[in-house]
């Protein structure tokens, strides 16, 4: 443990969203620069539904697919893409010692059963008995396994054979930030050589919309890019996402002849209590640990800003007062304008998109009339990724081009 931290590379990415699947498709859509959302599925609320996926290509057994609900299928699929990308798919000698940290929510529901109970309860002579009877009679037994937060990890173990270790973090956006932070820390310290880290989110769930709408968080028609929402009350559009990274010690990658897609230089996270100014201050403290590494001119920010009013305003203050102040020409992009807000996998997704942009050596065009996002034509070497939870959690990461 006394040794210097090991260098950690990203050697695989697997991403799916409303834009499609894979780095190339995402890049193409981001370069088009036309963010939009779906306002009809849960009108008047806007969501970003997952693009059509042929799950068979990553989850060959129909029986496995039947055992999963959407979020698990999205995640298991994206995990498979990441393993393919890192060229470790099916290599059981590596997969059997690959560590896994998943960022997950959970709890997909049987909407028909819920509706039956909600409709019948006011009419029932014995409400509690009615509830018990309906739950016992109408819930399908395997639904529980589609709901358990750790069963995305379980499904990835079963379908892809990742069995070194398996941990599932929960806690909305923070879980995605901390999943990557701890996977990176373990590898850097020599506690792990290679890890699969990421998560999945299904936005096409009215019960989830309800949860966030309790606090009035959900974006209503009309759609606007993230930074433009503040003066209209703010809000996020939930997005279906699956995002996974394979990260590994440089020496482990070199030994197996794997090429780096990028270097994962640092991930920092914190929790502020979100009193006014607290998130900005927390981000500034994280930035202090990173700022000496960021070089003006060839760096950009991929922001995980959700559009939630206070959180996004505080992040903007941080970016303007700290990051842009020190690196005046730094370009910022909020990917949430395109992808929606995917909660747990949002941060891993932005790390993956940073890898994609670094691979192209450039940034996609701005999409923001509020003036924060500016064009960037210089070659791209570094990406600062931000993650600011809609309610809690702040994170920063630095992803860099190797060589």
């Amino acid at each position, binding site marked *: *443990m006394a040794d210097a931290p090991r260098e950690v590379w990203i050697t695989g990415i697997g991403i799916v969203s409303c834009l499609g699947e894979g780095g190339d498709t995402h890049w193409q859509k981001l370069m088009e620069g036309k963010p939009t959302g779906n306002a009809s599925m849960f009108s008047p609320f806007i969501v970003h539904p997952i693009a059509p996926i042929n799950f068979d290509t990553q989850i060959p057994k129909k029986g496995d697919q039947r055992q999963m609900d959407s979020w698990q299928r999205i995640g298991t699929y994206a995990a498979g893409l990441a393993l393919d990308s890192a060229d470790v798919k099916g290599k059981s000698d590596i997969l059997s010692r690959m560590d896994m940290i998943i960022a997950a929510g959970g709890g997909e529901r049987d909407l028909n059963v819920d509706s039956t109970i909600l409709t019948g309860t006011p009419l029932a002579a014995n409400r509690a008995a009615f509830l018990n009877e309906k739950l016992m009679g109408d819930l399908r037994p395997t639904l529980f396994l589609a709901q358990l937060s750790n069963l995305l990890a379980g*499904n990835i173990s079963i379908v892809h054979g990742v069995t070194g270790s398996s941990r599932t973090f929960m806690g909305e956006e923070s879980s995605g930030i901390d999943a990557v932070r*701890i996977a990176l820390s373990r590898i850097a310290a020599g506690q792990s050589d290679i890890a699969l880290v990421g998560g999945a989110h299904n936005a096409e769930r*009215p019960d989830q919309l309800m*949860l966030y709408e309790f606090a009035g968080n959900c974006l209503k028609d009309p759609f606007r890019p993230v930074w433009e929402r503040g003066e209209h009350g703010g809000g996020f559009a939930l997005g279906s996402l699956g995002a996974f990274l394979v990260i590994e010690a440089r020496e482990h990658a070199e030994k197996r002849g794997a090429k780096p897609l990028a270097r994962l230089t640092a991930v920092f996270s914190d929790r502020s209590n979100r009193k006014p100014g607290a998130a900005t201050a927390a981000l500034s403290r994280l930035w202090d640990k990173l700022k000496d590494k960021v070089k003006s001119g060839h760096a950009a920010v991929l922001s995980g800003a959700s559009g939630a009013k206070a959180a996004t305003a505080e992040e903007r203050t941080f970016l303007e007062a700290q990051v842009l102040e020190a690196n005046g020409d730094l370009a910022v992009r909020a990917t949430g304008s395109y992808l929606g807000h995917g909660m747990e996998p949002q941060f891993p997704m932005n790390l993956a998109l940073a890898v994609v942009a670094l691979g192209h050596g450039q940034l996609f065009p701005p999409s923001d009339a509020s003036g924060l996002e500016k064009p960037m034509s210089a070659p791209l070497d570094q990406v600062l990724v931000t993650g600011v939870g809609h309610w809690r*959690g702040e994170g920063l990461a630095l992803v860099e081009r190797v060589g």
Partner: protein
Amino acid sequence: MASGNSRSGLDKFGRPLVVVTGLGVVTSLGAGKADNWAKLTAGQSGIRAITRFPTDCLKTRIAGTIDFLAPQSSTAALAETFADLAAEEAIAESGLGAPGNFPGPLFLAVPPIEIEWTQRIEVGSRSGSNDKTTYADLMRVATQFPDYHQRFLFGSVADHLAEKFGTQGSPISLSTACASGASAIHLGVEAIRRGESDAALCIGTDGSVNPEALVRFSLLSALSTSNDNPQAASRPFSKNRDGFVMAEGAGALVLESYDSAIARGAKIIGVLEGCGEMTDAFHRTRSSPDGKPIIGCIASAIKDAGLTPDDIDYVNAHGTSTPENDKMEYLGVSTVLGERAKTVPISSNKSMIGHTLSAAGAVEAVFSLLTLNNQRIPPTINHDIPDPAIMMDVVPNKARDARVTHAISNSFGFGGQNVSLVMGLEPA
């Protein structure tokens, strides 16, 4: 980081030695270590008929509920209450930090959080829908319930604990199903071994006894249906075991580097010597029939502790009382311990407190450390009809004094989750 000479604070592998300086626990038996230990070693059961909600039409009507605290309206609120109590006790015992300022991160094993029927029906009723009620109706009135947003976020329990106890950095909420409590400890051990922190607050908590959670386990045929004699329902390793009993509780441990504990003159309760983990890819709810992942998990924990199987002199079993678990755990333990498996005592706390689910790994780590400290092994109660296929000394029905120097505690969960922890007394 460590200098070349002062080796006392390092383990056999040169990593910072991780010790325990505070313990806290709450179960259906009571609040606090003293009460729990007295009842546990007296062989008392905390399992009872459920009174929290009507149990009409349910196949299982018993649980290890915590009924001596103020009622709460959700699993999230119950889990938070239990964790809060256990953490108070553990931090007070450790004497570490200052009130509201704990000098390390929080790792919290917590059940999945979701809005429950009480609230769903309340929101539905407010929607005033005359006909079929759907989520579209609930959405119309959702903003009238602003408090439900944070209450039913997954991260809210950890956030509230982090705020109260002043833990450092981003709190980790985690789930590895029924191994969660052990995983929380495992993550804390790793953080201290990395030199990231000198201390960690590791908590497992669960308050999931509500109608839908009970039904979910019931529909998987996982629960005991011995409703008529609740205290005899949890029968780990017995021939007539018929499932586990859902239960509530929390266990909290203050982990600290040995050097930090010594420097401040803290009392060392025990050593977290080793952690093992191995994932099972066989099936979503069943173990690989050859037991390899369980065997690998137990063996790797012993190896991580720098010990051999011969050093283990007590096994705190996962021992859920399901036909499947107890059979597979026997296979795992007997394979690793070999001939000694017939004589090394193994007992299941769950025979008395039921299965505290996300909390179990932490609660049972607390009890394992109390076992080491008291040199006394809590029994496996309700052991009247031994399973002839399980040839182990399960410490049947009565607690026993014994020399215990290294204990291993097992936790196995749905989704192929296996974690084992090896604990010992402070090196003399």
